[in-house]
């Protein structure tokens, strides 16, 4: 015969075990994932011969504009980049939800040529690494309000990661513009 008290306890017990299992898996899910090393990205961006790096100082104007693009004061007083001809390459970090997303951005003639997620450290939202998302940034540049002149579609469940990459794209374009002035 069906025993209501035992079945109720059984269901509750199973639910608790599932919850514990999910919690146990959480630390594993937080490990960093390297999709491409920074060195490999630079090599690819410059056909195997990356130039020596340069730095650009974040003066007051650039810092102010960058703060608007990022939603916070940029970290550090200068940013390192690599440049050959009209191409500049930036490797930047921005917090998604709690951890930085390391992103490589190629800018040429004031337009984004490529966005690549190099290192992802969050437990959710890594869909931003896929081409269907990063390809949206191709040929994006800055409008008069220093925002991207293209609409970038979001990804359900990766809102903060999407926002982080959008911010970095605008930041890279600002840096490139300042570099060429």
């Amino acid at each position, binding site marked *: 015969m069906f025993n209501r008290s035992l079945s109720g306890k059984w269901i509750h017990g199973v639910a608790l075990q599932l919850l514990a299992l999910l919690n146990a898996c959480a630390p594993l899910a937080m490990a960093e994932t390297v999709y491409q090393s*920074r060195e490999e990205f630079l090599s690819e961006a410059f056909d195997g011969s990356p130039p020596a790096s340069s730095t650009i100082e974040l003066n007051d104007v650039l810092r102010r504009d960058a703060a608007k693009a990022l939603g916070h004061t940029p970290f550090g007083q200068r940013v390192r980049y690599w440049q050959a001809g009209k191409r500049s390459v930036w490797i930047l*970090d921005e917090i998604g939800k709690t951890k930085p997303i*390391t992103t490589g951005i190629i800018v040429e003639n004031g337009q984004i040529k490529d966005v690549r997620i190099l290192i992802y450290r969050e437990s959710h939202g890594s869909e931003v690494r896929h081409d269907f998302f990063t390809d949206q940034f191709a040929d994006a540049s800055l409008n008069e309000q220093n925002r991207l002149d293209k609409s970038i579609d979001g990804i359900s469940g990766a809102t903060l990661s999407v926002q982080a990459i959008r911010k970095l794209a605008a930041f890279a374009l600002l840096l490139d513009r300042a570099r060429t002035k």
Partner: protein
Amino acid sequence: MASGKRNRALADFSYRWHRRIGVCAAAPLLIVALTGILLNHPQRLGLDSIHVTRAGILDWYGFTPQSAPVALHQENHWLVLIDDSLFLDGQLLDDAATVPVGFISLGSVAVIATRRSLYLFDGISQQLIERIGSEALPDGSIRALGIDEGRLQLDTSAGAFSAPIDASSFRAEQRSALPIAQTTSELPNDVRAKALAAWRSDKLSLEKVVRDIHTGALFGSVGVVLVDVAAIAMLLLMLSGLYTWSKRR
């Protein structure tokens, strides 16, 4: 007639229990409803960017580092790595850092080396000048950091390198005397407490606390069961309310 009396008795029974359940479940349902409204607008309300710093709540959640802190010190300045967060005198330098291997001062500038990064810190403005990642450093992981003849000296697994103070470029060196790796320091209690407080300051978002209140998880499995009971009570209120309404029309 008998069925009419029975229906009225059932309606009265339903109404009485509707009141009882309503009174008993009012408080938890109010909490679930209010937290649910907040959770519908987390970014607009900034719940995900506000972090809880109250020690009592952080202790309740049990935020403790997964590994023992690693510290280096230079004069009265402390560099502390807690899990993957690197702090200099309690200020966050990097939250994806590796083990620090060197910490030297050059006038007002502090140079910090971890296995795969260099940090230049301006002691006057108390700001990070630059974090130099592996892509701009010599190959290999850094083992020790030193200074000689006005140049930074790096001992890496790929050999010895030197750089100007701003670390703008590196050249290989044939050195017989390599920088000696700094030994980690024993953390004084006050420095440990300050570093731990800084480490915990961004661990718990207000959104998570609100969500845990909403689901009852803040109080463990007991809280979850209580919220389940409140949800069942809401269902019973709906059913009893509809039934009472239909019979009293």
